[in-house]
């Protein structure tokens, strides 16, 4: 698991040190504060470490894999040097500890694709981590693969491509981890069916009982839940995978959000680590309740007044504009009663 992370001059993130990461980690803040940027920065580092030395291809250096990953994950205008904070004089740097081993790199604004400063003490990993973007990918599946694999154009970044490829893996039969099987059942209960890839038509379909529906007419929320279900089914995800979820609330009913978070907790208790970026009151509140009930540490990073504040849902609800907004609406309602 990721133990801690430090970033300097990484896009909008000038300085961030996040220690003591937990099985579930929450990042909250307003639009444009850098939540997704942070998730992607961590994801590109972790995926680099997972690709490095995997299989028979031992030729690519970690620096090469990282540069390519950063380029296709962030899709900068010209070069990866564009990722360095515009106001900064110093280089961009990222340092993390994965399974208590250090991985760090840095580069300056002029960097095209060669990352000169990189240090890796992380052992090769057989696990797969994944990024679940705010939008579902099932209905865009072929478009993503074509635009990236054939046309090699910007538009869908690596988080989309990696997910599309991960979903494309065939389901595996045989005994899955018990907790994963239970979680899959719960996910399928939320959406009342499951999504399957139909080889004959080369299309995803939503199966509900004996009925089949084209993925294009299936609700957005169903597709989002189905993605997690599929990744557990085809064993892309295993214990020690890391899942980065950007806005789990998007397209989901509050009740479904709560159920999804219950499943996330089950998976987290069995080895999968989660990083969740959100601006939903429901997500924060539900995770707060889970932390309190289960005495579970859920580290929170919240962006407020130009700085990143760290707290833990086990101790308190963080002071944040998302929460303050619910209080502000409450106060407006009370004032209305006395008018």
């Amino acid at each position: 698991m990721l133990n801690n992370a430090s970033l300097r001059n990484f896009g909008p993130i000038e300085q961030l040190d996040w220690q003591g990461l937990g099985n579930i980690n929450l990042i909250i803040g307003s639009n444009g504060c850098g939540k997704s940027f942070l998730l992607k920065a961590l994801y590109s580092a972790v995926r680099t470490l997972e690709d490095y030395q995997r299989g028979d291809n031992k030729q690519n250096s970690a620096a090469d894999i990282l540069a390519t990953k950063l380029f296709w994950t962030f899709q900068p205008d010209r070069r990866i040097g564009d990722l360095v904070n515009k106001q900064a004089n110093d280089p961009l740097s990222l340092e993390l500890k994965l399974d208590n081993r250090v991985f760090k790199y840095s580069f300056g604004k002029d960097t095209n694709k060669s990352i000169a400063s990189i240090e890796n003490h992380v052992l090769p990993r057989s696990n797969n981590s994944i990024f679940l973007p705010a939008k579902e990918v099932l209905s865009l599946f072929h478009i993503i693969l074509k635009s990236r694999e054939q046309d090699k154009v910007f538009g869908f970044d690596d988080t989309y491509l990696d997910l599309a490829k991960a979903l494309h893996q065939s389901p595996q039969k045989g005994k899955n981890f018990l907790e994963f099987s239970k979680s899959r059942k719960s996910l399928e209960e939320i959406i009342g069916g499951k999504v399957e890839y139909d080889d004959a038509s080369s299309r995803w379909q939503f199966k509900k009982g004996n009925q089949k529906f084209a993925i294009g007419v299936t609700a957005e929320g169903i597709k989002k839940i189905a993605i997690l279900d599929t990744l557990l089914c085809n064993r892309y995800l295993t214990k020690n995978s890391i899942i980065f979820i950007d806005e789990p609330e998007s397209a989901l009913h509050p009740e479904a959000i709560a159920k999804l978070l219950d499943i996330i907790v089950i998976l987290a208790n069995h080895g999968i680590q989660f990083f969740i970026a959100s601006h939903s009151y429901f997500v924060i509140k539900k995770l707060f309740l889970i932390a309190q009930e289960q005495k579970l540490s859920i580290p929170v990073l919240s962006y407020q007044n130009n700085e990143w504040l760290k707290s833990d849902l086990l101790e308190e609800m963080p002071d944040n504009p998302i929460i303050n907004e619910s209080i502000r609406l409450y106060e407006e309602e009370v004032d209305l009663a006395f008018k």
Partner: protein
Amino acid sequence: MITHPKNDFERMFGPYPDGHCFEIESSAILKKINDKANQGEGVKIAEFLLLRTANGKSSISIIEAKSSAPKNADEYINDVQEKLSNSLSLFIAIYLQRHSKNNSELSDFFKQTELSNVNFILILALQNCEKSRLPPLQDKLKNALKKTARIWNINLNSVIVLNEAGAKKHGLITSITTQ
């Protein structure tokens, strides 16, 4: 302050202008009703009613005061809902002279208030409660009082939950806090 406070928090409420506060919980009529009831079957009631006028419009706030926030929210909110609903019904029964012809317990201010268009505000006031816990409690209380509000044509916006600071802000607590 109200004349029959049961605890330090209730002691904070007021003082209000003479005749504008009706302490329904300590009223003779409630005592008479509950004297007839078996143990545990009496009518549960809120603390007091407060008659106020703002911008030329009268309002009657029905206040249930609690010194702490709930542990079991469902049970707690049902209890508060019952007290606020009963208080509304009993007050109107008294106003209509259902219990005695001269409804002497009500001041002339209450008697002369035209109830057809008075604004009823149903309030749960909590002494020790963080502000962040108030919005969900308020939503829960609104939900629990939905039927009462429909029956009496009370806007659900008039069902509110306040903490001590909110009660001060909205003029329910005006005295200096007692130690």
